[in-house]
């Protein structure tokens, strides 16, 4: 009896320990790790087809293993299935960006063209349907220009100062803020009438708009050109004429630096861009390029508008200068600052006070657009 109980217990114990130790792979099947190891061995023997089969099972059980995806990539590559291999390596890198082998394989494989797989189209979401309809409607109305020339379809006009900030005040009390607003409105009307270029204003009345809000407005309307309108002032009452500014890192001369510091008032500049050593940020490359090109375009626009002033206005042309203007620097498009006469000069002030002269100014700027 004792011996029988002992044997029964021994038998049960043996069964339990066997089940716990060995049976899992029979009862529950192999683990992802087991399949991956098997796949690895098959790769070593060159049986890539079988390796793919086994590794797919591993992926099904553990879709988060970069190791398995790396092995799958190698198997596909062994079978000559470049697209599938690349997909698997990419998955591996997504799961583990430190997977050196997969990263390297992606870079090696993508050095040259790789055939693509056709993607199955999923049903459209409501937003996608609306977008597709809009796409179909819009494209027929638009003509594409192949060239790389800069295109201007929208302009934001910025009448300088406003509200409590009157800007420069003339000898007879003429305020810069009123002159700039009036000219901006006249120009806006002309652009609306002309119809080819959309125009927006940073302020439409006598209120103060901070410089940051003005640049935000230019960005809001996705302007192709930003024009800030001002009239100049100087301690030297004889100084007169028109000049145009655009943004640059350093001022073109001392006077340009003085004007910029006056217009910038007490603003702090942005932090200069700090390049991270040993790192190429492609978006930053594109951003810097955009800024450089915008500044280049700004220079071209500045010369164009100043040329029009020279031709169309009875004002001495003081030419084009560049300086680090906050209001120009923070925009995402070419931007210029027009200084129309010196309000501190009695003769210029008298001209700026006349509606007919302001009309001429607006016409000259419009001609700059049309040319």
């Amino acid at each position, binding site marked *: 009896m004792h011996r029988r109980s002992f044997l029964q217990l021994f038998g049960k114990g043996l069964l339990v320990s066997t089940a716990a130790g060995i049976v899992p792979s029979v009862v529950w099947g192999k683990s992802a790790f087991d399949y991956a190891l098997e796949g690895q061995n098959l790769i070593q023997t060159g049986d890539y087809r079988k390796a793919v089969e086994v590794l797919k099972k591993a992926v099904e059980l553990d879709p988060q293993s970069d190791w398995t995806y790396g092995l799958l990539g190698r198997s596909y590559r062994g079978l000559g299935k470049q697209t599938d291999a690349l997909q698997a390596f*990419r998955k591996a890198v997504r799961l583990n960006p430190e997977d050196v082998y997969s990263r390297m394989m992606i870079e090696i494989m993508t050095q*040259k063209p790789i055939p693509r797989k056709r993607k199955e189209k999923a049903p459209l979401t409501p937003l996608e349907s609306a977008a597709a309809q*809009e796409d179909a409607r819009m494209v027929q109305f638009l003509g594409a220009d192949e060239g790389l020339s800069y295109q201007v379809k929208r302009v934001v006009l910025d009448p300088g100062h406003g509200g409590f900030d009157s800007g420069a005040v003339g000898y007879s009390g003429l305020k810069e803020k009123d002159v700039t607003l009036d000219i901006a409105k006249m120009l806006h009307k002309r652009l609306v009438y002309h119809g080819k270029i959309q125009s927006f204003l940073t302020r439409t009345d006598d209120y103060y708009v901070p410089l940051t809000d003005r640049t935000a407005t230019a960005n809001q309307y996705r302007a192709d050109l930003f024009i800030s309108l001002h009239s100049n002032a100087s301690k030297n009452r004889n100084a007169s004429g028109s000049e145009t500014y655009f943004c640059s890192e350093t001022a073109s001369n001392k006077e340009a630096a003085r004007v910029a510091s006056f217009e910038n008032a007490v603003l702090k500049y942005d932090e200069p861009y700090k390049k991270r050593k040993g790192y190429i940020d492609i978006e930053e490359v594109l951003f810097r390029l955009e800024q450089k090109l915008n500044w280049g375009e700004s220079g071209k626009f500045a010369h164009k508008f100043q040329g029009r002033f020279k031709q169309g206005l009875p004002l001495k042309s003081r030419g084009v200068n560049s300086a680090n203007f906050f209001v120009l620097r923070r925009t995402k*498009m070419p931007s210029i600052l027009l200084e129309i006469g010196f309000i501190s000069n009695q003769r210029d002030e008298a001209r700026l006070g006349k509606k007919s002269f302001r009309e001429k100014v607006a016409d000259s700027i419009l001609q700059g657009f049309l040319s």
Partner: protein
Amino acid sequence: MIRRVVKKRSCVSRGLLWGIVASAVIVASVLMPYKSHGGNVDDIVFQAADYHYKGKLNEAIIEFQKAVRMDPVNEYAHNQLGILYAKKERYDDAFREFSYVVRIEERNTFALLWLGILYLQQNDLDRAYETFQKIITIDRHNADAYYFIGSIYNIRHNPLKAVEYLKKARDADSEEADTHYRLGRAFHDLSMVNNAFLEYYRTLQLKPTHTRALNEIGWIYYTQGNYKAAIAEWQKIITINARDREAISNLAKAYNELAFSALTKGKKRDAVSYWRATLAIMPKNKAAQYYLKQYR
């Protein structure tokens, strides 16, 4: 894809066991497809790549230089050297490496792409454009080349052409957040707001912290008169980066404009609360400071 690889930074590796096994596998059989160059070169290339990914640029350069001395036509090693030189701002050397690869294999689009990027960096738009176009003639599914051409058109404010190329970039590789973002911008420039919104949305699906996409969604709402939604988008940016100057400027503008609007409707109390909101986000905002003093 090249953009994705360049942008990848290190992160903590997963499970120790898997790591050990993976390392063993890699070390054991890593450059199997590269056997043609001889074992030593493969080991050196792998070591160099490892240094590169770990940010040890000088060590990587030394190893890749060794590799190209042993195997002068190893395109991968030359390309990696090119990237490493570019990272070290040795642009002439980088040009030399990529140009050499293109000379020995004109279909090496990776080298061409980097030549294009270097032209962009030198502000040589025309040559960059030509180079990316050349890639497309070799590989009409090259998402990166389409992306850069689309971006060039974006920069030149030619949104229609930008849409044309960025759509191709998106269709070739839909998993690049910046492709969707730039395509969104191009649509936005064309006032195609449904498409713009969709692409910004896709950007955020791939990269929820893409603040520039959030910023643009804010403008779509704002221009549509949905100020509350716009403000919510810009506030999201502030939670991601409390010093995001664009979001701060946009919020300040929104609050200031809402304040003026309230004031013209005679709702002085609302106006005051908006100006307070401006100052909370931009304490030195002159407009809010002045008008708050006037109407408080």
